[in-house]
């Protein structure tokens, strides 16, 4: 199993969710996060005054998938979240050793 951690634009959450649903991946955790990538934020101007917006609002989508559909899920996220502009985000892939269902205590295979 893999944990996919995608940092994406807030406006792309629904599209990513729909793309994952098409792969029958319905469970996910979505978190509001702030950060910056290579571009380290940008400068905004309000009433003639420049101010630095260094931490940009992003969404973090986390899904756990089986190894068999991992690549497909990554592709779905990347395609759904892409605009082609700087700031589209990242997908991180982490290994998951075990997973348990709290209600029943059973271990996911």
């Amino acid at each position, binding site marked *: 199993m893999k944990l996919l951690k995608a940092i994406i634009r*807030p406006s792309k959450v629904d599209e990513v969710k729909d793309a994952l649903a098409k792969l029958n991946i319905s469970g996910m955790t979505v978190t509001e996060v*702030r950060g910056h990538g290579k571009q380290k934020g940008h400068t905004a*101007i309000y009433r*003639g005054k420049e101010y630095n917006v260094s931490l940009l609002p992003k969404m973090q989508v986390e899904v756990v998938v089986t190894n068999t559909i991992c690549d497909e899920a990554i592709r779905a996220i990347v395609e759904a979240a892409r605009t082609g502009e700087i700031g589209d985000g990242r997908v991180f892939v982490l290994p998951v050793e075990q997973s348990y269902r709290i209600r029943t205590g059973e271990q996911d295979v």
Partner: protein
Amino acid sequence: MNTGSAAAQLDDARRNVGSDILAGESGLSALERYTAYIDRDLQRLYAAAGAVEGGVALVALGGYGRRHLCPYSDIDLLLLFGEPVGAAGEQVLRKLLHPLWDAGFVVGHQVRDVGELDGLEVDNPEFLLALADARLVAGEVALRNRLQAAFDRPAVQAQVLAALQELAEARHAQFSGTLYQLEPDLKDAPGGLRDIAAARTIAAASDPALLRRHGDAAALAQAEDFLLRLRTLLHLERRRNDNALGHEMQERIAGLLAYPGPSSRQQVESLMADYFSHARAVARALERIRRTAPVPLGVNLGRTRDGVQFIDEQRAALHPESWPAVFQAALEAGTPVADGTLECIRRNAGEASLASLLPTSGHRAGLVGMLRPRRGLYARLSEMHDCGLLGRLVPPFRSIVCRVVRDFYHKYTVDEHTLQAVRNLERLITAPDVHPRFSALLHEIDSPELLVLALLLHDVGKWRDEDHAVESVRMAEGFLDELPLPDGGRETVIFLIRHHLQMSQVAFRRDTEDPEVVRQFAVLVGGEARLKMLCLMTFADVGAVSPDTLTPWKEELLWRVYVDAYNCLTRQYADDLIGRTETAARECIARRPADLTDAEVASFLEGLPRRYLQLFDRRTVYDHVRLARDIHPDEVHLRLARAHASWELTAVTLDKPMLFANICGVLSSFGMDILRGHAMTTPGGLVLDVFQFADAERFLALNPGASDTVLHAIEDVVAGRSSAADRLRGRLRGLRRRPSAPVTPIVRLDGDVSRRYTVLEIVAADALGLLYRISRGISERGCEIDLVLIATEGQTAIDVFHITRRGVKLTPAEQQELTAYLQHILEDEA
């Protein structure tokens, strides 16, 4: 009055009072008879004094007014004249007062004319207190009624109560605050006659029912009778106005009143036991009444420790139009509305119609004014809601009372969500450091009460499950027709309700880094004022979904959309021009009034920024078209009109160098403070400038023909017959320099944001002539000003100029040079 016989008769009358009391008659009735005797003397004097223009009223004050005149008490009188006192009035005064003085009376007299009653609340406190017992002895009833009406004003009543509290404190302090005096002063000591009068005055001025509680009325009446008997005997024994019951007099009076006991010492002990018993009852009653008496706040309204309340609930129940005033008074006093008053409204609100609650436009304007965001607004609206009044005053609100919405986000019923949204606005005022950017925005809104009104109505359509914004608008429209809103206010409220979800959808669901998304949103909003209101509405609305919904993350997204849309509206609108095929322009042409032609309207609009049609309603557009009619190169067509608290100057002309600077200079030379405005130029050279300015010195309001003077001055300067600089120089010489607000001046030029223009933004401390100096500076560097947005936020001027040089954008070197030049001007200013 024959002095000798009058004195003898007076002695007889005084002796009779003493005899009656010793014969067992009550002090009160004996003194009433003596007072009536004095009244008759005064009435005779009045009849003999002759007439005076406007009439005169002879009014008894204080103890004499209460008919408690003791034998050697001063006679306190008010001589109230219908006209200012002239020679004839002086004559009347002499004829009234001299015989009294000759007869040996000590007369405490006040002379006033009715004109002076307007400022009664600032009259001397002792006089105000004495008026509480004013009684007409002789003369004009109408004057007495005028006096009563002036005295009954809440401001006067509040002043009477304040004076009473202060004087009572000072008086009690003279006796170390204790009633247990071995030789008490029957009038002034704690528990004495003055305290009885004070208790009654407080009750009369605040809540007459106070005396009925705890049996105080009876206790005060018994104490008063006892004390008046002692005081009368004391006066007769001492043959003067002496109120101190010393040891010697205690023995004498105890004997006269036949107090039981084998020795005079025991008789005195019995007398003083009675005295202390009565004085204690008086002191307790006064203390209780002082503690619980409401401070008068308005007609039938007072403030107690429990909050603002009706003085007379039965009367209030019959006057539903008085109910909203309770909440207004509570907002102003910073206290809740008392439970009893809420209960009274709750019992009666079910039958109240909007017409009965807000019968006049004044009442309806009062409701709108009450909605201004401030400390306590949420709490007062919640009280109104709890007692059923809010739904009666804002009928659409009734549809969402306890309305449950099932979703994953909302934590409250729709009505409470709405009130929580109002609370979020209130918190921007009361806790400005928590969300400082949004707090600052709220302070920039001209009519923040419209925002609260929109919030109260934004979800009323949620009684339906779908498309609630549309339904909310439908329900709000009829209600808004009933309210006297400022020009454009109704449209603004409707806009905010209709689009209250739009900004959060753009901020949280759309890609705001796409300029087209921001542009479309800016086009929808149309102007900075509405943008600010919609942003604040979104902030308040999202924050009211649940305590955790408006995260710092969402707040940041919302702010970014606001800034991007603001920049779009102020810096990027110049390339977006009105074309003949534009829908809004076609509509404007189609609905033109009969005195205009299609061609006139079309040629006026063509080439103006599209923003123009969003800034001005159609009626104003047509006025502009008329003003532009038959304009020739050397002319400037002007119109000056009032616009609420400020003035609006509209100027139409064909492009001229320094035009904008010259108009600013002339307005400043008359001391006008330019608050906001727009200057627009079409590619064809038509110039439309609209300035809103404040006339702090009221030059236009106070001087007949002043409007023409200003307009002629502008025409002269524009035509080159006089100089704006000279006019302004004279003005500035006579001006005491005000300390500038701590605003660091910003000059920023941007050559990228617009296709056709270099955009210059200036933020600086507002000052007289600032706009003139900036625009003159721009022109002096060879630049043309095509578009200008002027805004003033508090002490800060925020101006955006769209400029070119020789018809094209400025080069980087020219930008640098202009920046340095303007910086220099602004630093000189600071």
